[in-house]
């Protein structure tokens, strides 16, 4: 079967998952404590106003009707309005504004973390139980066990206040302009419009959050890369490579690495998904106005429509990432048939 057919089949297979997640979010959102109507009303309101608002939101309909209404809206692209972040604005707008920022941070973090994590993992495996291994394993242990917001706070304190060399919060210096919105990706928009100083300003603000997220991601990639490398190095074909007279460097780089990469790719993909879903704690710590931030608001104020929209987006992201992983496996591992 061709790759395209394979991808198509995987997409079909993902549909039930998508449907399940939609249903589950619907049920969970209705079970959530809190009343979404309150957010749509002014500070003081009358009972009539309340009932009217409730009616307007369609919350008086039977649950099943609400469910089907919700499903049809999701698939027609009408994701409703938010009443919390920006009263009355379509959920889509919020996502378009917020997601690119999260995406920027996620993509930088995952690239940096993959490059460093795979490298350190391999080095650790190569020098098993020697100094370098112990050192990287120690760091990785710190990385996976450190609470990310705590790391964020420490970084903010050190670089934002104590040394005062990097902005501690936000994604731009307040009062500085914005580039014209073209791709929604601020960095690219800055470049397109030639506003280099805006790009620099943006990057400066991203350094600490990216450092923070990379650090924990590097830790988890290092651990996976190390353990899969160690496992591969025990395999018979590695012994064959050595018996052929291959240099230790080639044994690692040509014979072991591709095999060890396969399980590491999973961890990278899942981490990337997690980062794209909005690193809630980091985004909040650094006040970045990303997707995770919006999710937090949606949950706290029972904003059904915003919540459903974001969860739907996250689900699609995970499905896409899994799809990419499947394709990547088929590319890396000839034993996989598609």
């Amino acid at each position, binding site marked *: 079967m061709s790759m395209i057919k394979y991808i198509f089949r995987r997409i079909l297979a993902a549909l039930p998952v998508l449907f399940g997640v939609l249903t589950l979010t619907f049920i969970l959102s209705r079970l959530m404590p809190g009343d979404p109507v309150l957010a749509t009303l002014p500070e003081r309101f009358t009972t009539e106003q309340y009932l009217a608002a409730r009616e307007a939101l369609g919350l008086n309909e039977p649950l099943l009707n609400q469910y089907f209404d919700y499903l049809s809206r999701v698939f027609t692209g009408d994701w409703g309005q938010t009443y919390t972040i920006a009263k009355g604005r379509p959920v889509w707008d919020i996502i378009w504004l917020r997601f690119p920022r999260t995406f920027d941070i996620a993509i930088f973090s995952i690239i940096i973390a993959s490059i460093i994590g795979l490298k350190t993992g391999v080095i650790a495996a190569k020098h098993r139980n020697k100094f370098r291994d112990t050192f990287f394993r120690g760091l990785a242990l710190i990385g996976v066990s450190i609470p990310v917001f705590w790391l964020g706070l420490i970084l903010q304190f050190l670089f934002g206040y104590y040394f005062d060399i990097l902005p501690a919060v936000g994604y731009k210096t307040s009062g500085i302009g914005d580039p014209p919105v073209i791709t929604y990706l601020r960095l690219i928009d800055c470049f397109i419009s030639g506003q280099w100083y805006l790009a620099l300003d943006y990057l400066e603000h991203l350094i600490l959050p990216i450092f923070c997220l990379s650090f924990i991601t590097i830790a988890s990639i290092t651990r996976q890369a190390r353990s899969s490398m160690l496992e591969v190095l025990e395999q018979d074909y590695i012994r064959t490579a050595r*018996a052929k*007279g291959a240099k230790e460097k080639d044994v690692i780089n040509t014979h072991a690495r591709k095999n060890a990469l396969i399980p590491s790719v999973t961890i990278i993909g899942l981490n990337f998904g997690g980062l794209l879903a909005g690193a809630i704690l980091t985004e909040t710590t650094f006040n970045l106005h990303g997707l995770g931030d919006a999710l937090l608001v949606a949950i706290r104020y029972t904003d059904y429509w915003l919540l459903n929209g974001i969860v739907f987006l996250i689900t699609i992201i995970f499905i896409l990432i899994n799809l990419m992983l499947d394709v990547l496996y088929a590319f890396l591992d000839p*034993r996989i048939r598609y």
Partner: protein
Amino acid sequence: MEDIESRNIANLEMETDKKKILEVKNLKTYFYTEEGVVKAVDGVSFNMYEDEVLGLVGETGCGKSVTALSILQLVRAPGEIEEGEVIFKNVDLLTLKKKKMRDYRGKDITMIFQDPLNSLNPVMTVGTQVKEVFELHQREEIYELLDQKMLEWKNKQNRIKELEKKLEDNETNQRLTKEEISDIKNEIEKLEEETRDRPTYRSILREKSRKILEEVGIPDPEEILERYPHELSGGMRQRVMISMALSCNPSILIADEPTTALDVTIQAQILDLMKDLKNEYKTSVLMITHDLGVIAEICDRVAVMYSGNIVEYATATNLFKNPRHPYTKGLISAIPTLDKKKKELDTIRGSVPNLIYPPEGCRFHPRCDYRLEVCDKVRPLLTQIGESYFVACHLFDPQYKDSPKYEWGKEELERTRKI
């Protein structure tokens, strides 16, 4: 005890006019595990001669693979080669630097393994893996060959030009006959066909790989070069392993249970192939197996291993005709033959000893029907008892000819009942 041990590095010269090619002397390889020191190979000595097959036989776990891996220094942590010498063509390999040792691996001494599926890299094509050996050890030869082929190629191209010139001249002076013209045209066509692809390093490498696969009886080698190991059958994979092992014309091929993981019919094919190739390449083979049938079929000499030691070392003919060591006797009588019913097969009582705390004296004594009183006290050493015949057993030591036979207690016999 110490000086008796040193006697173990006996003079193992076999009566033969063949050249000695490998000499393993008092090799000891231990594994430092958490449970204790596993003395997997504990003073093994043997010789290999040019153009001969030496069989190394023994039960699973007696240290055959570790012996083989020690020769190539492929033992992995927690294993350590404790002492001994591995002398190949007058060089003690154990004293070599890592880099120098690599030059021997895959070129002078090569190895194939039991499980041909896991022994090939699953994410690399057969071609990549076969080519690697040539690239590692024959770079210079390939470049030489390339120069030579380039020269031929250029000569042929010049010849084409020459011929074309002739035809051109003929346009004006009409000196050639029709036949001559058609001959020239044919020759040009042939030469053009031959020089279509300019020889390259890659093309020579590919040609060499194709040839070696053909040598080991792989049909359609061009196609197999592009395949991944999992797409081949077990027998084909082992052929690929053999092709890699033979590609640099090694002096010694170590085959660690090369047929154990294969179907019976394939086993016979692979064994036949190895026999043929051994004769063709004049490679000495160390054939490791727990199957005496394999030994009988292919080996010139046999070393019987028990619990990290060699207990009997002789020519195959003599050993099968008249095995001396009680362990070897047990092994041989355990081979099923047509006139022995399965039930009546003699097997050896008890089980393989622990290698962390091996039995004192003769390591075989807890299982030996011929055991003497001294056997659990003094370790027997490999000593010559006849022409090209060595045994490590007190029964053949004149020193102990008056030693009383050990009386097995009833309970003891029951405990170690033959299975």
